[in-house]
């Protein structure tokens, strides 16, 4: 993977319609974005569709990227993830029973990194998530990594949907306070 400054430079070139830069950007980031959406969509055909739309959007809106707000990969991943979530939310017929049971709740952090590999921002966020009750930690991380809906979470945690809704809301507001967001 290229360094963040290199990616910023590539995105700036893409904003000027530099196709070679776009190909380099794709090569450097495709596997990460594909990993993010495949985890949510769990189907290669859907994941490919979402990744295609994501890179088309990146091509068309590279000029809107603000390196002061987010790292390049965070910006790109949030475009990809939003598309993936839109797709799963509109496929409401897919129930939790069809999800591979291999997804172990204990592994809600999918690919644990050594602490020294984490960015400061990640350490800080994990500290705040870590202050939630253990069940709420799992709730938030399963929602984020697997893209689960409130209904799926309710089934997993054997709680009414409205309770899950309250837990999610409270957890996010607690995280916000912990992060010191205005």
């Amino acid at each position: 993977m290229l360094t963040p400054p290199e990616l910023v430079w590539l995105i700036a070139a893409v904003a000027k319609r530099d196709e070679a830069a776009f190909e380099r950007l794709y090569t450097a980031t495709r596997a990460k974005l594909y990993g993010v959406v495949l985890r949510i969509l769990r189907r290669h055909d859907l994941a490919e569709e979402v990744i295609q739309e994501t890179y088309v959007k990146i091509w068309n809106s590279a000029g809107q990227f603000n390196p002061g707000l987010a790292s390049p990969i965070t910006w790109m991943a949030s475009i990809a993830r939003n598309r993936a979530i839109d797709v799963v939310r509109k496929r409401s017929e897919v129930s939790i029973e069809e999800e591979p049971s291999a997804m172990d709740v204990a592994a809600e952090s999918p690919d644990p990194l050594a602490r020294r590999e984490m960015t400061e921002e990640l350490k800080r966020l994990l500290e705040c998530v870590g202050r939630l009750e253990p069940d709420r930690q799992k709730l938030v991380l399963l929602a984020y990594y697997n893209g689960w809906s409130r209904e799926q979470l309710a089934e997993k945690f054997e709680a009414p949907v409205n309770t899950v809704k309250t837990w999610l809301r409270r957890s996010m507001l607690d995280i916000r306070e912990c992060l010191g967001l205005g």
Partner: protein
Amino acid sequence: MAHSEDHIALAAEYALGTLDADERTQVETLMAVDDDFTAVVQAWEFRLGVLNQMVGAVEPRPELWDRIKTAIGETEPQSPIELPETPPVAAEAARGGHVADSPIPMVDDSNLIHLSLRVRRWRSVAVAMTALAATLVAMLSAQVYRPDLLPGAMRPKPRTQVVEVKTPVPTSAAQFVALLQKDSASPAFILTVDAATKNFTVRRVGATSEPGKSYELWIVSDKLQRPRSLGVIGGNDFTARPALASYDTDTVNRATYAVTVEPEGGSPTGVATGPIVFTGKLIETVPPGTPQGR
């Protein structure tokens, strides 16, 4: 800045991904009209986004790059919206009403999920239009003798008048807003309805003009026998009209708003003749009395 805890929690759950499809549309609509709210959502997205550092990379198939290259060649942002050469919905309906089996004229045919939703939504429109065809003869005689008996769009001329306003969206309580779009990524018009006066404004955001064609706005509701025209959307960025005043608040708030492509100046018949290109529903943005973000 001045967002309620509800708004902040909504933004957070959007970024987390736990909202349902309707709630996501609601957030995207709010984002389109409120820059401050967009900043709140993005702050959440970027804060949570660091979690992706822990997601393992998976190589996609090499063919995917070819698809992307082809796709960017086709979707230059400046290119005009291409309108499909399909027969109009109204004509399909009048011929026997199996619109559900026919290709629905849609710009966005790449998204089957959207399409199937639209098919369901517009099936009721088609039924309404069939009913209209059956009573057309009666209507025509009414048009001659008692034009005032007919609903607005069925009356003979005068046509709905387009009022161009020089100023941007009114700053006073604009409480309801709808994104008229073909998919969540590409809003074309923003419809704002003032709950108190039912005046509405249409702001052009993504739609491009076609020479010799006009965009016409329709209200579609199960409380109305058929879609009714709200007039042609003017050429400028803003169009304002009082045409919703005769509808009750509940109908206005729950209706689907649709934009069709019509001959220049609007449908000559009062019934949509062109393809439906954008649709949307109103959502409440700010409670009455609260100043808007922008």
